[in-house]
């Protein structure tokens, strides 16, 4: 039987990781989450949007990164519906429209009316559509996802082109995503852009935050928990568990500490073994 120690067989580390995550979930432990400025920047911008501004929400991720971005999309959408805004839902990835429907069903849409206060336009297949819709929505989206002709929708009558948007927020897990809005909406029409990004891409977006091309970044599930905390503080009717992110924060901490521990222990063992080998040479 091969010696089952941690070095040769990774499966022990897998079990350790599962335990480290399962225990905090079962005990429903909760942790306060300090809010980073990149998250607060997005929250404040949405909170200060003047009444009846147009906001375009773009779902640019797929089923594989649902755990990272669906909580963000849910909690931000809830915030948009709490404010007197006009919202258009679009998507640069094919999974976008289905994920949008799930978000719309999960949040409390208050007295907002479909077609007047918000509408789902659906999938943006190429850059031609992305640029074209800034000039005229109807030519590129003759019907919305529910099949209504867009020229009859009051929100499209009021905003015939997305160039009048006060903000476009993209939940992005890769290409096409933020780069399209940066290149074709922000740099050409000065439409403010916000990014909700998977953790792996967040460092790559920091230069755009520093150069103020984007007004803020929501970094993965932790930003969802921070946003939920901010939103609950101001709108108490928003339940804490809506995005499901806050309950994951303790498991987040324990799993991170496990990784740190294993890197440190791994390196200590490595140096001890190497010194042993040098001494034996």
């Amino acid at each position: 039987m091969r010696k089952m120690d941690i070095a040769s067989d990774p499966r022990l580390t897998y079990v350790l990781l599962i335990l480290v995550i399962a225990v905090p979930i079962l005990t429903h432990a909760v942790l306060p989450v300090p809010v980073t400025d990149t998250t607060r920047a997005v929250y404040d911008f949405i909170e200060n949007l003047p009444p009846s501004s147009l906001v375009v929400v773009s779902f640019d991720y797929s089923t594989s990164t649902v755990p990272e971005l669906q909580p963000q999309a849910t909690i931000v959408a809830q915030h948009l519906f709490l404010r007197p805004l006009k919202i258009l839902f679009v998507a640069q990835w094919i999974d976008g429209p289905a994920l949008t429907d799930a978000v719309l069903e999960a949040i409390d849409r208050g007295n907002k009316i479909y077609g007047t206060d918000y509408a789902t336009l659906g999938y943006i297949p190429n850059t031609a559509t992305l640029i074209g819709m800034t000039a005229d929505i109807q030519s590129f989206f003759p019907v919305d996802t529910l099949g209504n002709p867009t020229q009859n929708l009051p929100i499209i009558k009021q905003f015939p082109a997305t160039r009048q948007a006060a903000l476009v927020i993209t939940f992005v897990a890769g290409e096409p995503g933020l780069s399209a809005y940066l290149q074709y909406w922000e740099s050409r029409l000065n439409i403010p852009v916000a990014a909700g990004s998977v953790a792996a891409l967040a460092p790559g977006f920091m230069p755009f935050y520093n150069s103020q091309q984007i007004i803020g970044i929501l970094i993965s599930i932790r930003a969802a928990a921070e946003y939920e905390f901010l939103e609950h503080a101001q709108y108490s009717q928003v339940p804490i568990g809506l995005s499901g992110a806050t309950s994951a924060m303790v498991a987040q901490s324990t799993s991170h500490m496990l990784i740190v521990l294993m890197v440190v222990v791994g390196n200590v063992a490595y140096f001890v073994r190497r010194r042993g080998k040098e001494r034996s040479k």
Partner: protein
Amino acid sequence: MVDLFALIGVWTAAFLTLMVLSFLYKENPFYRLTEYVFVGLSSGYTFAATLRLFVNQALSPIFAGQLEFFVPLILGLLFYAQFTKRYSILYRVPLSLAIGYGLGITIWSVLQAYFLRQIRATMLPLFTGDILTTIGNLVIVIGTILTISYFILHREQKGVYGRFTKAGKYFVLATLGAVFGTTVLGRMALIIQRIQFLLGDAAFPWRALRIGTADEGRFVPIALLAFLIVFGFYMYRKRDVKPEKSTKT
């Protein structure tokens, strides 16, 4: 009240999750099955999406009377020439239209968003009243210059110039460290939500993922047990009688 259909849905989801996780123990047919089903379902769904677009963008203008849309329709169908032997070159006509307009808009937008804007944003005052911003600005201006110098390829990186590019490499390494750190945040979030689901945790965002509701969620652990039994039995029956070759050497 627990809705039977939703319960079956939740159990199937749990069973599939465990079939994928079984890859951690060993590469096995359960795992391979989920891969092929995943590719099948997502390709089918993608086809429905692109078909709906074709109807909206290419066909409905024609039905609405804009007859000039016949031209784009025919050009679009040229894509299928790649499956014929003789006319396969024709599929490059619509393709070159896409390539052409793509290159045209890329040149200016990349220049403005990624080159000009980044250079302008790095023109920061190197000495400001407040000490913290001064340090921050210094790090950004000098760091960006050094990182760019690291990627200059035509000169040997030796001597004084080599010292600059070495410093540039340290900035690249700090950046890769930041990417490494945040990637861990992302990956952990993925597995935490899966374990929340498998434990039937009420805090799992059931409605945001449209899998079912919290009260069906309570019964997920039963699926966990069922799978372990089935998987254990399968592994027991399938275990190799002769010891594995690799343990011999």
